[in-house]
């Protein structure tokens, strides 16, 4: 170790508290970068290998019924490289020990294992034996939720017939990485399952001999990114067989959720770490500038005796490199651990056969590079000050600062009222402008992060509240396999505990306006509907018009249409005649893209009178008859799905709000470290500059507490002012983020709770006080008699 290295080592030990704070903030930035980049790679790797193993389709086509022989026609369309017909159908599930109704989807597979499109990965047991009749392979998520294993039996209601099937195995499939029920938002593997049966069994069960009702297909590689015109062509060719929908991979629900998460990680992995690293660089900058000042004469001497500028640059830059290096190492280790935690969280919502947290050398290298780069950036100003010093000039003490008047002194009315302590605070803050700016920047960033974290939670909970306490007010929604007459209401009303029943008529359709078009559906509601209440942003109920439709804002925006204008609706049922209808009003909803119309009006539109496709109901809260209701509803014939709206809400609360507590805790801790580190750093720097001043105050009879209170006031002023700047900054970031969440499936409302305004300020106070503890310790330990004798 050269003697300069020894000097460096001792200086590092001397400034360890500040360095630890800066290294900590750097490490957090790098940890969040590495964690997110690593998770991104983990997810992409898991997705790609899963998609390859399962041969994930590029598109899905749902048809009423298509003879398999017609497939050759589709296969000839240029760009279509492979097709597989299959049968897909909704199913109801009966498990002996489960009261509430369960549902799921049944998909068919060839009876013998082949690497087909949309294949499965077995997790337990084996494939079908021979033709697979009477056998089922259950999706592992549902099986695990109910303790089902190969050899068990399960009852499924398929095509209105109760079938008892032998579970031969459990499996997962790349089509269900994010496995949600239709219309759901979060996975509920315990109430919605996926069941794989053999083609033969499905053909027999669903009366589809020699036919299918779904095609999955692959496109030639160059067409994968823009499959739309091929899907149009397929739809055109199959028109006679009743195409219900075509779905390119980008719109497949599981893929959509998985990909939004992957995309989101990419965005967050640039913004969040950059904020932390910027703060670390700014704090490092103040520390290095202080070191440059403190070492003025040392640098001058070293240069005088023959050390070159390059040697001095390298010597002092090692400070920054050390911060960057250690911050990088700690950050990478922490980031990998954090990525492990994120992988664990992802396993709850995403189902993969193989999903590991692996270290990626390029990610680690990127982490190290960023850490060192920001540290070097942060050190550059201080170090270049050192290098620029001329030895002759450096050995003279620094000329005293010009006694600039601070802005407050121009208002004598205020200035004269301030006590000596506050005047000192104001003088110090205005004299060290760069340091004050650095402190303001750090605390603004820290507070803005806290604001954003809590605001996101506010928006999420407001979304859930608006959707489930304002719009969707039913307890259950029952959908019928086939449309029923209004008399079906009476059957439902007789179920135990039912307080109110309302019919719903839904029509799938394509909305068109000029060149915009969107596949969706219209929900027909009775005029006095109280279980689904369309509302505007203010929360006022909007009456469903006698004619025309109410569009939710997202759909209206998508179609570029406003209230009072008309759109074209092409129903997928009846005689399918396109009709032009009035958009009566635009309403608000944060989930999906709904449209509402009058029950009778919608029926008439497709040539029906009073068809009912679903029933919404509310149970009497006084008679807690849910169990009895469950028992009886399962006996009702022709029911396709029973959705518990309340348990959907509870699941959302659990998954979104509770899980967010972890991230809230982390963000608050991380931001706290910024607030803490920044104040600690500026206080300790200021302490080292003002040893003589403090010693003088002690001589005059100030107690350590009184001396400390000057520092505490400085810290509080900085962090409070910073937090006031941080609130609008956080507000802006939050709004940008809410905007980014504006997707087809869900949007976030803008909502800020009072608590969200207050918490960043409280955090600023709390962490300033925490940072004051080591400062107080340093003040108590200061040898003030000696400080008075030292030449400055």
């Amino acid at each position, binding site marked *: 170790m*050269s003697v*300069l290295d020894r000097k460096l080592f001792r200086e590092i030990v001397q400034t360890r508290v500040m360095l630890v704070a800066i290294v900590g903030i750097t490490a957090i930035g790098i940890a969040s970068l590495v964690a997110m980049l690593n998770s991104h790679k983990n997810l992409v790797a898991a997705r790609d290998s899963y998609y390859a193993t399962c041969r994930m389709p590029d598109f899905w086509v749902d048809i009423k019924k298509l003879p398999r022989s017609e497939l050759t026609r589709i296969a000839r369309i240029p760009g279509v490289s492979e097709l597989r017909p299959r049968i897909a159908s909704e199913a109801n599930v009966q498990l002996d020990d489960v009261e509430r109704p369960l549902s799921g989807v049944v998909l068919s597979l060839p009876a013998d294992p082949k690497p087909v499109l949309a294949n499965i990965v077995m997790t337990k047991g084996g494939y079908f034996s021979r033709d697979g009749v009477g056998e089922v392979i259950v999706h592992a998520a549902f099986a695990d939720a109910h303790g089902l294993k190969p050899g068990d039996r399960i009852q499924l209601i398929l095509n209105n017939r109760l079938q008892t099937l032998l579970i031969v195995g459990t499996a997962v499939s790349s089509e269900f990485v994010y496995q949600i029920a239709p219309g759901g938002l979060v996975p509920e593997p315990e109430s919605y399952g996926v069941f794989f049966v053999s083609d033969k069994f499905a053909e027999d069960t669903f009366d589809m001999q020699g036919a299918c009702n779904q095609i999955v297909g692959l496109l030639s590689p160059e067409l994968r990114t823009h499959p739309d015109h091929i899907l149009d062509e397929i739809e055109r060719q199959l028109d006679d067989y009743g195409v219900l929908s075509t779905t390119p991979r980008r719109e497949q629900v599981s893929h959509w959720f998985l990909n939004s998460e992957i995309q989101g990680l990419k965005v967050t992995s640039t913004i969040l770490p950059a904020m932390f690293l910027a703060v670390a660089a700014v704090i490092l900058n103040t520390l290095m500038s202080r070191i440059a000042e403190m070492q003025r004469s*040392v640098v*001058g*001497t070293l240069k005088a*005796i*023959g050390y*070159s500028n390059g040697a001095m640059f390298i010597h002092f830059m090692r400070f920054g490199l050390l911060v960057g290096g250690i911050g990088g190492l700690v950050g990478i280790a922490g980031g990998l651990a954090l990525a492990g935690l994120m992988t664990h969280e992802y396993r709850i919502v995403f189902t993969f056969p193989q999903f590991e947290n692996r270290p990626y050398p390029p990610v680690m290298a990127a982490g190290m590079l960023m850490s060192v780069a920001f540290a070097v950036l942060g050190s550059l100003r201080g170090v270049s000050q050192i290098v620029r010093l001329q030895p*002759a*000039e450096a050995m003279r003490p620094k000329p005293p600062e010009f006694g600039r008047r601070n802005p407050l002194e121009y208002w004598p009315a205020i200035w004269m009222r301030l006590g000596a302590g506050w005047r000192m605070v104001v003088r110090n803050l205005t004299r060290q402008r760069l340091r004050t700016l650095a402190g303001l920047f750090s605390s603004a960033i820290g507070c803005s992060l806290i604001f954003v974290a809590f605001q996101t939670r506010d928006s999420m909970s407001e979304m859930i509240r608006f959707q489930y306490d304002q719009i969707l007010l039913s307890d259950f929604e029952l959908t019928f396999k086939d449309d029923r007459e209004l008399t079906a209401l009476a059957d439902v009303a007789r179920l135990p505990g039912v307080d109110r029943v309302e019919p719903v008529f839904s029509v799938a359709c394509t909305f068109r306006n000029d060149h915009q078009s969107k596949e969706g559906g219209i929900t027909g509601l009775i005029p006095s509907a109280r279980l689904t209440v369309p509302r505007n942003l203010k929360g006022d109920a909007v009456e469903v018009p006698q004619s025309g439709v109410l569009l939710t804002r997202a759909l209206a925006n998508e179609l570029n249409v406003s209230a009072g204008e008309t759109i074209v609706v092409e129903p997928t049922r009846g005689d399918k005649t396109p009709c032009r209808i009035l958009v009566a009003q635009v309403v608000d909803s944060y989930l999906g893209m709904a449209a509402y119309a009058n029950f009778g009006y919608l029926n008439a539109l497709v040539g029906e009178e009073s068809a009912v496709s679903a029933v919404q109901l509310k149970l009497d809260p006084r008679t807690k008859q849910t169990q009895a209701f469950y028992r009886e509803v399962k006996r009702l014939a022709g029911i396709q799905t029973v959705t518990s709206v309340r348990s959907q809400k509870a699941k959302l609360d659990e998954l979104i709000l509770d899980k967010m507590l972890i991230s809230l805790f982390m963000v608050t801790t991380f931001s706290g470290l910024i607030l803490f580190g920044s104040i600690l750093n500026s206080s300790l720097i200021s302490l080292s500059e003002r040893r003589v001043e403090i010693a003088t105050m002690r001589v005059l009879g100030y107690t350590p507490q009184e001396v400390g209170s000057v520092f505490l006031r400085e810290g509080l002023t900085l962090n409070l002012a910073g937090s006031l700047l941080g609130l609008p900054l956080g507000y802006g970031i939050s709004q940008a983020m809410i905007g980014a969440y504006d997707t087809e499936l869900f949007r976030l409302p803008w909502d800020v709770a009072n608590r969200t305004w207050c918490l960043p300020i409280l955090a600023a106070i709390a962490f300033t006080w925490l940072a004051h503890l080591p400062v107080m310790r340093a003040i108590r330990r200061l040898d003030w008699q000696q400080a008075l004798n030292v030449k400055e």
Partner: protein
Amino acid sequence: MPDADEPNGDEPTASVQPFTRSSAGAPSLMRLREVSKTYHMGDVSVPVLHHINLEIRRGELLVVVGPSGSGKSTLLNIVGGIDTPTSGEVWFGERDLAKLSGEELTRHRRLKVGFVFQFYNLVPTLTAVENVLVAAELTDKPMSPTDALDLVGLEHRRDHFPSQLSGGEQQRVAIARAISTHPQLLLCDEPTGALDLATGRMILGVLADLNRDLGTTVVIITHNSAIARIADRIVRIGSGTIADIRENPRKQTSAEISW
């Protein structure tokens, strides 16, 4: 900030031609010809040195005396290669320091010059022996730091930090540091300025011993004219010009002088 105070009225201001009075006995180590230095600070020009002509002889103990603001520190900086003149030549042997680049000057200082400062300028985070090493590490064949400390009588305090040493001890460490590279020229800027009389005498003794025993050329710059009595030659400087250069026939030991 450069030394640029008002000239001190007590100083002789008569213009003299220094070279004519110089009776070169020993070969010269350095020659300054027509050296001027002007500092520019924004729009203000502050002339500090005017047409300085000076010879430094090999092996001599030269004392430059002048009041504050007379330009003596600037002169020392130029002689030591820390600063460059605005005009003129600064010959060190066959090299004109005025024409050297920053790197060449750094190399020159490293190999040829030792510095001793008024406030010692030790690195506070290094021990005595390490402070000597800081300079010694820069050259190929340095004096062992222990030997250097031994020469100034501080071998026993080698592992103490500057804060654990008295002012005189710190200055002796600084001298050990300066001589550890076997410099041809030892430049001392007010080496006793921060010390009491007894300690100051001791430091001057050490410098005189080094000059005598090692043959190192020593230039001491001071405002304290009492110190001039230990010199071989005395240069008086005032208002940026050399007022007078004279031999000192009655050279005294450090113990004999007082202030």
